[in-house]
Structures are given as structure tokens and as C-alpha cells.
């Protein structure tokens, strides 16, 4: 792994809020990260941690009254947050491809698969309908749909869950985007189907040298797919590391706790399950101190007062934990 791969997309201090000014919650609260060309970055976290809101923010698909309230998303010299809606439409699907968890609701039930794939191409490329429909067959074949020339005439309900996910992948890669965002792409699938979809995503990403942002709560999927991992908790990234460091030398107490409650097939049965006690904070409330402090086994008094920010421990790892930072004598920025 080369340390300075080209940065394809850079997010800084992204803040997204759902709901009104008083009653709402800032669900993405100062998130910064970058996606590197030809790499897979996993964004891992539990329900409500803000990982899907982050993905939707990258595409500016946050519905009102939710909105992005700050930050920058840089893609090829442009800040996506300063584009107007027409310019943004030229980004979605063309420069950033997206794959969501539930392929059935992402597809139009009243249009054939071929027409839906062609639609993406017609929206972004200078092609005729016939060319677009011919390309749809090629794309479907490419993602492993057998008899694609016939299946383009089928409707979404004719496809199984795994096959629908292949259709969505075909749509996502149709314009050869540099960035592919996949939000829980295999969560609803059986393990044998999941394995095939993961392999397909990986092969396509390698072939296109695209950046894949893979959002998942499944640490097995993270271990198999990611080059780099971002761990999200309560709207913040609490740890960033390359995949080996994250699994073998995690530093944030939340990451450690998350790894301790994995019940995968490789686990040791004799090690007792260690659940994380309590629940994530209610982001509608004003947050004081570290958001993980109430559940943290390593909590100190200062954790309840000071808000940690992500600091580099090495070029492979960043962590937002005051206890770790103090142990390593890392100083907080002077203005914090």
C-alpha cells in the first residue's frame, strides 16, 4: 500500500443537521476524511451514528428540513457544496455512483431494467437511446447477470435480491464514476450472495481504479474489503486507520468495544461476549465532553468536560480520545 495515493475526494468539517433549529439534531458533526483513488474506505458505525447521513451529504441528498450546515466536499477542484442543483445533478451518477441497501426501493417497479440503466446513460452521456440500451446489456453482462440481452426486458420484481443488487451496481458504474458509494450493499442478502456481491464490487473497483466508500455495520465485511477504515460514533469520526491497524491495534475505546462484541465465525467461543453497556447519546441534546464517555470503560473526569478531536498517532492512525492523546502527550490545538 503506497502511503500517498492520489486523493479523489476530500471532506472537511462536514456538518449535517436533521429537523428544526431547536428540536433538531446535528447528525454529522464536523466529519473530515478523504477517499483515495483505487482504494476502499469503510465507514463503520451503528444505527444512528451518522454514516448514512454522511453518504447522503456527499451526494447532497439530504431532504428538507434536514440540511448541510457547514463544511466542504472537494471533488476534482470543485466544492460540491457550492454547486447549484443543475451542476450537482451532473455529479450524481456520473462522477459519484451510488448503491443503496434496498435495491427494490431504489428501482422503479414500472420500468424494465434495461430502460432504467439506459436512463442513467442518457442523462449523463451524449448517446442515442439505442446505444444506451445496447450499453445496458453490456453492463449487465459485466456485473454477472446471465442472459443479459433477454433480462433487460424484465422488471425489478423478476429479479432476486442479489440480482437486483447487481442491477444497481451496473447503474452505479454505467458512467465510470471515480467515486462509488455503497451504503450497506449486502446487509439484506444471504451470506453466499453477499460473498458474490462483495467480490464483484471489489473487482470492479480495482478495474476502474475507483474509490469505493463502503458503509457497513459488519466488521467482517470491513475486514474483507477495506484498505482504510473510519469508525463513526454519534456523528463524529472517532478513529481512522488502515485496516490492519484498526483490527490489530485499535486505540479508541469504542473501536475496541465494538471489536469485542463481534460474533463472527472466526471468534473464540471461550471468550465471553462483552456487550457495550448503555446506548448512544441523544443528539438532540447539547453534547458536553466526549460522546462515548458515558459508556466508556476508560473514562476519566476530563472526558466529561472536554470534547476530543481527531489527532494523528502515526501516519496510519488517528484517534479522537483524550485518554489516549494524553498518554501519548499529544497536545490539543491551542484554540480548542
Amino acid at each position, binding site marked *: 500500500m503506497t502511503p500517498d495515493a492520489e486523493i479523489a475526494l476530500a471532506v472537511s468539517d462536514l456538518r449535517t443537521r436533521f429537523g428544526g433549529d431547536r428540536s433538531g439534531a446535528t447528525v454529522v458533526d464536523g466529519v473530515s476524511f478523504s477517499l483515495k483513488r483505487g482504494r476502499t474506505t469503510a465507514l463503520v458505525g451503528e444505527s444512528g451514528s451518522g454514516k448514512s447521513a454522511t453518504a447522503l451529504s456527499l451526494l447532497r441528498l439530504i431532504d428538507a428540513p434536514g440540511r448541510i450546515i457547514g463544511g466542504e466536499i472537494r471533488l476534482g477542484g470543485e466544492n460540491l457544496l457550492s454547486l447549484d442543483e443543475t451542476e450537482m445533478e451532473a455529479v450524481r451518477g456520473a462522477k459519484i455512483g451510488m448503491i443503496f441497501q434496498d435495491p427494490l426501493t431504489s428501482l422503479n417497479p414500472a420500468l424494465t431494467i434495461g430502460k432504467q440503466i439506459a436512463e442513467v446513460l442518457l442523462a449523463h452521456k451524449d448517446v442515442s437511446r439505442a446505444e444506451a440500451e445496447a450499453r445496458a446489456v453490456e453492463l449487465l453482462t459485466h456485473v454477472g447477470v446471465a442472459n443479459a440481452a433477454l433480462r433487460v426486458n424484465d422488471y425489478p420484481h423478476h429479479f432476486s435480491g442479489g440480482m437486483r443488487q447487481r442491477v444497481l451496481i451496473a447503474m452505479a458504474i454505467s458512467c465510470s464514476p471515480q467515486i462509488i458509494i455503497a451504503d450497506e450493499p449486502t446487509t439484506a442478502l*444471504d451470506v*453466499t450472495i453477499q460473498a458474490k456481491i462483495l467480490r464483484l464490487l471489489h473487482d470492479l473497483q480495482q478495474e476502474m481504479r475507483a474509490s469505493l466508500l463502503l458503509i457497513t455495520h459488519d466488521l467482517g465485511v470491513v475486514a474483507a474489503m477495506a484498505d482504510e477504515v473510519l469508525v463513526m460514533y454519534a456523528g463524529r469520526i472517532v478513529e481512522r486507520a488502515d485496516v490492519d491497524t484498526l483490527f490489530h491495534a485499535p486505540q479508541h475505546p469504542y473501536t475496541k468495544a465494538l471489536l469485542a462484541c*463481534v*460474533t*463472527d465465525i472466526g471468534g473464540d467461543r471461550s471468550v465471553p*461476549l462483552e456487550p457495550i*453497556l448503555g*446506548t448512544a447519546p441523544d443528539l438532540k441534546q447539547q453534547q458536553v465532553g466526549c460522546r462515548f464517555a458515558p459508556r466508556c470503560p476508560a473514562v476519566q473526569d476530563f472526558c466529561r468536560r472536554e470534547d476530543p478531536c481527531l489527532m494523528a498517532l502515526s501516519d496510519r492512525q488517528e484517534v479522537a480520545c483524550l485518554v489516549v492523546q494524553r498518554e501519548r502527550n499529544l497536545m490539543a490545538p491551542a484554540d480548542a
Partner: protein
Amino acid sequence: MPETLLEIRDLAKSFPARGKGNAAVQAVADVRLTLKRGETLGLVGESGCGKSSLSRLILSLMEPDSGTVVIDGEDFLGASVQRKRLMRRRIQIVFQDALSSLNPRMTVGMNIAEPMRLQGLGSARERDGEARRLLDLVGLRASDAERYPHEFSGGQCQRIAIARALVLKPDIIVFDEAVSALDVSIRAQILRLILDLQTEFGLSYIFISHDLGVVRRICDRIAVMYLGRIVEIGPAQPVCEAPRHPYTEALLRAIPIADPRRMRVEELGLIQGDGFGSPKPEACAFEPRCPHRFAPCSVKRPTLIPVGDHHEAACFLNDRSQRKGDS
């Protein structure tokens, strides 16, 4: 007390197929299982393998085509209406979607106590007291009895559903994908609770899941289902570490391990085809997808044969007489 608490005898259930000319779908075929006192039996398989149909048959929520379920030596499915009603107290179920399995118009306390009311047990006051005691037992507050299900998170609703499953003091609880929809940390909390309750009350569990990782973690024995049949059954360790059916093996190799040093995406096992449709009646159901298929697999159906200590598999690879002459 005899060791065997529950016995499933040759249960079978088929559903009429949609569309003309299609054969009926054999959801559950000749399933034979036993559950010992204090044991946790895992039932794994992919969508459509019949594991949920089997759970509904066991609880007599659905009529089987044939076969029966015996609880403590007494026929459950064939019992009289009154007797069956009493026997239902002994076997309870917890579903995947806890919120939709609770009545939204009843308080949490009433939800938990409802099985008692239906069984005509206790006064209203006693039932309420019991609900409060159970809420405390499953890690919620007794005062939560006055609140409504929608006020609780998914993990909390699952605790409420577990409290309700406990209210009749059953011997057996069936968990049907009970932790599948939960986040990792919450899942671990619920699994911990399930294990603690078992130790405390000596409960026997049937734990149905598509997640072999979870099943391996908490079950004593595992049964693997494929298209309505059990293809392998045995103690958790040999089934997961030295599987004797190619389907079990394929399932295990398809699961990503949470350790990048042990498994990356290139090493994930891929298995051809999918587990849908109706298998040929006189062949192994897994034959079309099996990487090890040989002559007898397409003409005969393998039955479960012993392959180890309390370990059985339905595959001709384990049958010397079938392998003769095949190399």
C-alpha cells in the same frame, strides 16, 4: 427426568406453488430433531430454506402435512384443544421484529402479561406485578410497564419480547432471527441476556438464524437446513470446524471473518447458483450447486448418516459404499 425435552418427528409441510404447472414447494421435509433439557440448538440456513416454517410448525402456529412434535413424551400437535392450550405454556417464541410483535395499543406491562391473561392466570394486580418483575429481570425498569412499545428502541423492544416469552415460565424458547436486526453492540447485549436467562432458569433454546457466527457462538448443537431438509447436524465445534456436508462448508467459507489477516475478499468462498426452486425428487437438493458432486448425487437422495460423535450429514461423500468405484 428424561434428557430429551422436545422431539420433532418427521415434520413435513408443503405450500402450493404460484403459477400453473409448478410443483408445490416443500418448505419442510421429513425433519427429525431432538432438544435436550438446558440445551441450545441452532438452526441455520439461507432465506427460503424452511427454518421459519419449521419454527411455526414446532409452535403449532401452522398445521403440518405430516409428523408431530412431542414435548416431554406427550404429543403436542395431536393434543386436544384444551390440552394443547396448557402445553403452549411450555414453549414460547421471540420474533425478529420485536416492535411489530408487540401490541402498540397496550402498555408494555399489558403486553408482557397478555399471555397470562389469555391463559387465565392471576389477577390483574398479580399480572402487573409479574410484568414489572420481568422488566427488571431483562434489564429494563419496572416503571417502564406503564409506557408504550413505540417509546423503546429495537434492543429494548427485544428485551420486552423476551420478558413476554418468559411470563408463562416456559421450558423452551424459540428465537427466530431474534438478534438479526440489531446492531453489533446491542446484539451482544441481547445475546448476553439470553445466555444469562438460560443459566438462571435452565431453559432450552432453539435458536434460528442465518448468521452462523452468532449460532456458533451460543449453540451447543447446530442443524443446517437446505431447501427444507436438514443436511448436517452435530455439536457446534465439529460442524463449524470440520463440516461434513459441502453446503455447510460453502456457507462457512462465504462468511467474512473480522480479521483482515485471516480473510480478505479474494478468499471469500463463492458458490454457484442460489438456494431457490424445487429440487429433483430423486436427487440431492444441493447437487446442482455442489463442487464435489459425483455419480449417485443426481439419482438418489442422501439421508443423514452418522459421521462422528453425535454428528450426522446427508452427503454421499461420507458413504463408503457410494464412493466405491468412483475416483
